């Protein structure tokens, strides 16, 4: 570097790239934080977990400060301080502490989403900083000495080793995943490039179809050999590219324990969330777009499905409600189900509400089967922001859920049993890629839009 200008340019270029890398890296760290905080709530004394959260916050703080994202740095720094105090046993984990941590996490996510090359000006962090300071204000007075970092439990003499719990296993798993991620031969590619690629493959399939049709007409041996070779290769490229776009649904599902936890707290419901099929793979775009509908369904289950603990006990149910979120593959579809063991949907009440709201006439209601009545939930206008009755809120956003799922060429359905619970069933094609093309080419069903349901 002989020229000073060159050197400055070089530095600026590398640091700009680093900001981009950090915004990507921080999403992973925030996901880890989210998961770890959720686990901490069930295991408030787990030192390994506390250490890990401390390190998550520390890494975010360190890198954000490196590249001058001061707001992220400040919030992460205060979180680190809180967990530093917990490690020193100057603070204890309790529900309000965890609440503030989730608030801080939300602010960090917002900052991350809005930061490009510098701090977003319109995100206010003072309130969350104040809340964090409030928590730190509750620490027992202690000297300002720095905490020794990353002491493992085994190194502290006289400490009884904690029995290896599930959480620790999961932590070890996470560490193993992180480790492979850094040494295995993978590359990250912007989705945009894959999309461009996908469009080209779409064009290619169209041209290849024309070639096949043309060759069928000409009955030329050599031409048909070439045409079928091209057809085979195109099909292989298509399948290969689709598989590149497939990612496990795990990253998305890992967000939900935190979401559900917050909602349950807000609504004063006791429940547990069971997640199945985390490693189910589907198209990245589908994963991104299914988040909102799933949050709607979970919120709905918490608001209106799961009853209060008292009510559940009166009915001889376990006081803790259960919501399960499951995903699996079925042929070329992926199925996602949100099921609760709550009060179910009463078809008679559905009809009543729909009549009140003028969505259906009384005659029509009489002619309706129970199944049809329950599906009224998906009609626009059925849901209402005002909670006139406990059932009126049941449909909040359900028409939107249906619409969003249909945009993904999927369908959503509901099964319910009064007093037993409700299951929402979403079925979607594995991949969104290549949506449009000539109709009627039976050989390439992918080229035809799938039928719309409902």
């Amino acid at each position, binding site marked *: 570097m002989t020229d000073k200008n060159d050197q400055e340019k070089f530095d600026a270029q590398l640091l700009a*790239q680093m900001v981009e890398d950090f915004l990507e890296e921080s999403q992973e760290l925030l996901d880890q934080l989210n998961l770890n905080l959720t686990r901490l709530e069930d295991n408030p004394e787990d030192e390994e977990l506390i250490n890990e959260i401390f390190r998550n916050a520390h890494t975010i703080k360190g890198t954000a400060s490196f590249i001058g994202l001061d707001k992220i740095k400040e919030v992460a720094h205060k979180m680190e301080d809180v967990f530093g105090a917990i490690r020193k046993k100057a603070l204890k984990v309790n529900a309000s502490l965890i609440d503030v941590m989730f608030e801080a996490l939300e602010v960090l996510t917002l900052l991350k989403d809005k930061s490009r090359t510098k701090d977003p000006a319109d995100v206010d962090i003072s309130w969350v900083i104040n809340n964090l300071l409030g928590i730190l204000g509750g620490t027992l007075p202690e000297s300002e000495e720095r905490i020794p970092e990353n002491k493992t439990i085994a190194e502290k003499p006289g400490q009884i080793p904690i029995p290896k719990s599930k959480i620790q296993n999961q932590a070890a798993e996470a560490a193993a995943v992180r480790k492979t991620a850094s040494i295995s031969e993978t590359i990250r590619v912007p989705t945009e490039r894959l999309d461009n690629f996908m469009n080209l493959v779409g064009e290619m399939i169209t041209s290849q179809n024309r070639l096949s049709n043309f060759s069928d007409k000409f009955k030329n041996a050599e031409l048909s050999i070439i045409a079928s070779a091209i057809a085979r290769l195109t099909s292989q490229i298509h399948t290969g590219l689709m598989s590149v776009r497939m990612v496990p649904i795990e990253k998305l599902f890992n967000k939900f324990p935190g979401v559900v936890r917050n909602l349950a707290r807000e609504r004063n419901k006791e429940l547990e969330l069971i997640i199945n099929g985390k490693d189910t793979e589907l198209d990245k775009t589908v994963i991104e777009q299914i988040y909102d509908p799933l949050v709607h369904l979970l919120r709905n289950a918490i608001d209106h499905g799961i009853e209060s603990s008292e009510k559940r006990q009166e009915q001889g149910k376990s006081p803790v409600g259960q919501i399960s979120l499951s995903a699996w593959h079925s042929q070329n579809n992926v199925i996602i189900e949100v099921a609760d063991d709550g009060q179910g949907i009463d078809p008679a009440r559905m009809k009543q509400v729909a009549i009140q709201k003028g969505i259906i006439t009384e005659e029509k209601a009489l002619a309706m089967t129970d199944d049809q009545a329950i599906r009224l939930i998906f009609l626009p206008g059925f849901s209402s922001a005002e909670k006139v009755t406990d059932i009126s809120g049941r449909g909040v956003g359900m028409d939107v859920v249906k619409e969003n799922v249909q945009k993904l060429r999927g369908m959503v359905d509901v099964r319910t049993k009064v007093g037993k619970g409700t299951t929402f069933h979403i079925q979607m094609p594995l991949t969104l890629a290549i949506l449009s093309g000539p109709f009627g080419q039976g050989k390439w069903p992918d080229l035809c839009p799938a039928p719309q349901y409902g």
Partner: protein
Amino acid sequence: MNRKVLVVDDSSSIRKMVEFALKSKGFLVTSACDGQEGLEFLARERYDAIILDINMPRLDGFEFLKKIRADEAYASVHVVMLTTEGQEDDKKAAISLGAKDYIVKPFKPSELIAAVESLFK
């Protein structure tokens, strides 16, 4: 001859930046995401220098440094520690544990290059 550098840091964006900076100067660079992985790499291959972060999961920078300084086989490997602004004790600890130099974060890529190049002068 191209010198080999091992970068040990748990932040992937810092790792990438350091890697890129050093590679642009012809160094051969390998990255590890924590001290434990760093030790594994070190056992498999000979390195001329190590860029070492402090706070990392599993095995932190100081513990890592203690371990390699206790091993004759790694006596000739230079260590540059990445410290954080304001943590004066870290700098002293790094040097007393056997690091050759330290760089305070945030640093510019060119500063890092200068520090690593001066190790071999």
